């Protein structure tokens, strides 16, 4: 049987996205319950391959695997054979020879997960590849938004930040659009993609982006981008693109605020907004574990039976 891969949101249809979200919603009850253990994936092995540092995504995948009874093994590039000059594909093939069921891959190069998937027989789940996609982040954003807005049909979601270099912006806007939302992307011209993305609006004026927005996703601003001349200072960014009480007033009343983390408080988001009543940041983290449980079950071909069985 052909393995199921989650390489991005782009190849997924609306039905498949909704199936995963439905599963995640059911599995979240398990996460919230007193006994966080099931045996759906007993005897299955998940290897988390993190060529790039990440704590929250790795812990989230590890927890999702363990709650479902799988054995989760964490591999990181630092101190590995990668440091000794082994090629990416040799590492992938070597680990695959140990017969894991799922490889979860985070890598700084766009297309890395897809390249791996072409060379292995197990499932590959993309945990972020360069500036390409981060599909589980998109799914957890969608789940979080559905929890608070209900159907996303006709909703308007703004994504603000370094859009061009963001795999989150790419995956999340694809996912939200497939669920019927309209998406507006906002950032200084230097941070907007060189070519338009199909079906999304792009503006550099935050007020225009936030107008009628039901929710705003602020992206992490990397301060290294100052030296690349993508912006001038944290102060100026905060003034024109940061979420504050002043700027949030431009959105729909009661609009929600999301952030994939880790946050630069005082740059893209004011602390009082990050911790305020409209912030869904921690809810996103919880949704992340639920979504990843659903994805691992889907990879094992057990999603339907697990939520109905």
């Amino acid at each position, binding site marked *: 049987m052909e393995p199921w891969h989650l390489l991005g949101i782009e190849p997924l249809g609306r039905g498949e996205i909704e199936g995963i979200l439905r599963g995640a919603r059911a599995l979240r009850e398990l996460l919230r319950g007193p006994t966080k253990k099931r045996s759906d994936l007993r005897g299955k092995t998940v290897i988390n391959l993190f060529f790039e540092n990440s704590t929250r995504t790795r812990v989230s995948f590890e927890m999702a695997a363990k709650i479902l009874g799988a054995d989760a093994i964490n591999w990181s590039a630092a101190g590995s054979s990668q440091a000794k000059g082994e090629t990416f*594909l040799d590492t992938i093939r070597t680990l695959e020879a140990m017969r894991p069921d799922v490889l979860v891959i985070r890598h700084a190069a766009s297309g890395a997960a897809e390249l791996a998937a072409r060379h292995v027989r197990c499932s590959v789940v993309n945990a972020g590849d360069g500036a390409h996609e981060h599909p589980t982040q998109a799914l957890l954003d969608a789940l979080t938004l559905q929890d608070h807005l209900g159907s996303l049909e006709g909703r308007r979601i703004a994504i603000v930040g370094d859009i061009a270099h963001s795999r989150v912006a790419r995956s999340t806007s694809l996912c939200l659009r497939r669920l019927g939302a309209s998406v507006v992307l906002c950032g200084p011209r230097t941070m907007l993609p060189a*070519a338009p993305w199909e079906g999304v609006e792009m503006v550099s004026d935050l007020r225009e982006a936030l107008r009628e927005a039901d929710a705003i996703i602020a992206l992490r601003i990397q301060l290294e981008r100052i030296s690349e001349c993508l912006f001038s200072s944290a102060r100026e960014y905060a003034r024109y693109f940061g979420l504050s009480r002043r700027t949030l007033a431009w959105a729909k009343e009661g609009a929600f605020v999301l952030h994939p983390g880790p946050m630069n408080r005082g740059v893209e988001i004011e602390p009082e907004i990050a911790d305020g009543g409209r912030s869904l940041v921690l809810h996103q983290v919880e949704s992340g574990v639920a979504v990843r449980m659903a994805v691992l079950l889907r990879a094992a071909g057990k999603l339907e039976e697990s939520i109905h069985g």
Partner: protein
Amino acid sequence: MAEIWLVGGRILDPASGMDTAGTLVVRDGAIAAIEKGEGAPAPGTRVIDCRGKWIVPGLIDLHVHLREPGEEYKETIETGARAAAAGGFAAVVAMPNTKPPIDDPSLVRFVIEKGKEAGYARVYTSGAITRGLRGEELADYGLMKEAGAVCVTDDGRPVMNAGLMRRALEYASTFGLPVMVHEEDLTLSGGAVMNEGPTSARLGLPGFPNAAEDVMVLRDIELAALTGAHLHIAHLSTAGAVRAVREAKRRGLRVTAEATPHHFTLTDEAVARYDTHAKMCPPLRSRADVEAIREGLADGTLDAIATDHAPHSSLEKDVPFAQAANGIVGLETAVPLTLALVREGILSPMRAIELLSWGPARIFGLPGGRLEVGAPADVTVIDPDLEWEIDANRFASKGRNTPFHGWKVRGRAVRTLVGGKIVHEI
């Protein structure tokens, strides 16, 4: 040496304008006669039936990477020269970005000697513009020319320092050497791995805009105007570069330019799913750029088709796209890709052959590129209608890195003669 008669083909010689059904006689390694009709070969003469085929000057590729010395696992001068012959090329010009780079006369002699030993296509070589290709100090142009170098280039790397570029042009013109340039402003392309456009935006790959090439082409054309030196622009990829070269020629400047088959055949959409065989520098561009290059080839703005043959192994290509090396092999696919432009009505057969022979010969002042009685018999026989499937695994080159693997194409060099010796035959 016995005679070889190439009988009854369509003889196309762009230098003289000859386009006639006839027979070409090779004797003692030279072209002994070109006659109308089928002639009357004496018994015992080797007769090659060329009916339905084209008899053209041995093709010349100004731009190949032979990887020797230093990266013989990718290609050697011998395998590269064999690949050239297999693709119909009787002569190639090697690029200097080897390890070490060809930046002194002894290395120039090494490449030429190895080419002679191989005995397939003639191997000419360029020398570096700057020592070690570092963009800092001029290499010894006079000594390299005396050793046989036909031009200077830092190909693969642009000369970012405009002041140094001016001096390189002046110094090269002292010795009558053309300066061949890879046009890319690294401050605009830094970190980028493909063309900037909808495909790069979709794939999340850093792209670089046409402007990175255009500003350098415009800069160097003005430096050619300032110095009066001969500037040759390698593998141009943008509509803006074509426009700039057209204008430079109108001004009467000594500016020549080449384009590759991949840049007039493919767009950046070929990268599709991170196909590293569609990664090269300059990158595949948009449809409008492809159209502009085709127009430039047709109207005389561009002087040559060159392949930028760049063999790599799986070590450089079976990796994430951003990490993959630039370049594809091109010697064995150039003829059918060029003939596709003839079938599309963009190039006449004569113009197509000119771009692959007389055009490149003139740019670097190379012998050959024409059918001349008394001259060494560098001759290619092309079957313009032969249908075949490109199979990278059957290349004479060590390189398998081509985006054209599996393509069903028409037109192929069926014989290549170098100095009257048949070095390729199918």
